[in-house]
């Protein structure tokens, strides 16, 4: 059985391993920037990696401000970096 899971980030298809967080799967794919900030439009990535800092928040299947470092990828999940 394959452990590969594909999901979408800003419309682009990515593949990660089962059990990986969204942030980990994207970083493994060389996609470090997860979002831009609201005011300065600065790129942000993972920071604390354990759900404390909320730097890595993304919109998952339409629900905003979800922590990419905590939530595991699932098949055909739609992740977006817009607020």
């Amino acid at each position, binding site marked *: 059985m394959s452990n590969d899971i594909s999901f979408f980030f800003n419309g682009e298809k990515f593949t990660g391993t089962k059990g990986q967080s969204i942030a980990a799967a994207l970083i493994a794919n060389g996609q470090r920037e997860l979002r831009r900030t609201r005011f300065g439009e600065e790129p942000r990535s993972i920071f604390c990696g354990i759900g404390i800092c909320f730097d890595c928040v993304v919109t998952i299947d339409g*629900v*905003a401000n979800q922590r990419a470092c905590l939530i595991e990828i699932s098949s055909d999940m739609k992740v977006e970096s817009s*607020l």
Partner: protein
Amino acid sequence: MKSPDAIVIGAGIVGASCALSLTNAGLNVLIIDRGSVSSGTTGAGEGNILVSDKEPGPELTLALRSRDLWFEMQEDVGDYFELEAKGGVVVARHDDSALLNLAYHQREHGVDARVVGQAELHNLEPYLHPEFHSGVFYPQDAQCQPMLAAAHLIRTVISRGGQFVSQAKVTEVLVKDSQVYGIQTSKGKFLAPVVVNATGTWAGEIARMAGSDLPIAPRRGFILVTEPAPQYIFHKVYDSDYVVNVASSDADLQTSTVVEGTRSGTILIGASRERVGFDGSKNIEILRKLAAQATSLFPVLRDVQLLRAYHGFRPYAPDHLPVVGEDAQVKGLWHSAGHEGAGIGLAPGSAALITDEILGRPSFMDASAFSPARFAMAKV
């Protein structure tokens, strides 16, 4: 240090407005606070400047004048405190007759209250639950960032020769022959023939130090703050129950919801009020009730996350009118307190009343309804 003409106790919005008004009238003012700027109820306020929730009467007259004075203060001080005439939308869930009746009477007293039907209501607030079919739009309702406002008013007072002493707890109000002449604080003695008590929920304590009495009690109000969200809410939106609630003296918890967005993107959900003394404990049931009411107004908020909740203690008098005027027993001691949840909105109007009375000049309204003497008379 030059001896001031007047001492204002309290560096919240009520005290800051008084200090600025007195300064602009030519007095040298000293502001005293036991903490720092905005460290009391002002720091827990939403920044409501409302005319929509006032019934015709002296408080509405004060609110209307106050609202205009807010914009005059902005001209005077500068655009530093996010003052915005965003407008209020009041909706009725079931029977709208009380709301429409109120709006009718408010209009007669100079309030811009526009009855809006289904289409216009949802045009004003596209995310409002479709079950609401009528409401009243109040373009005059406004909002500010009250902590920044207090800070900038005080900054202006200082730049015009006034002084501010923080972290000074008043321990004694100095009175001789029923005339105030200064205060003793943890940072020393300050003398002035005029002392303004703008200490909100603590106003009763200051009055007692002067040998007088003021029946001001705290009322707890919760505010829920959400994560930053897209703009779903364009005005201050509330259920007409809020108006009924504000005038209630029922000590049990009553909630009705005021929902609004802020410049930073967070959404504020407020207006639960209960009379509980200074008990700071949280109650999860209040949070649930406020959340349920907010999402019933705006279903889109169901997916928005609550980040924090805080409460402040709002000062109120038994008849729910502010206390603005000279003390009934002690000459030179002036009170501006007991504004309950409307302290931000009513602050500049109250300051104008106090200043006019201190200077013995005519004012924009008859302030006898706010007189501290009314409680003494009630006792007799």
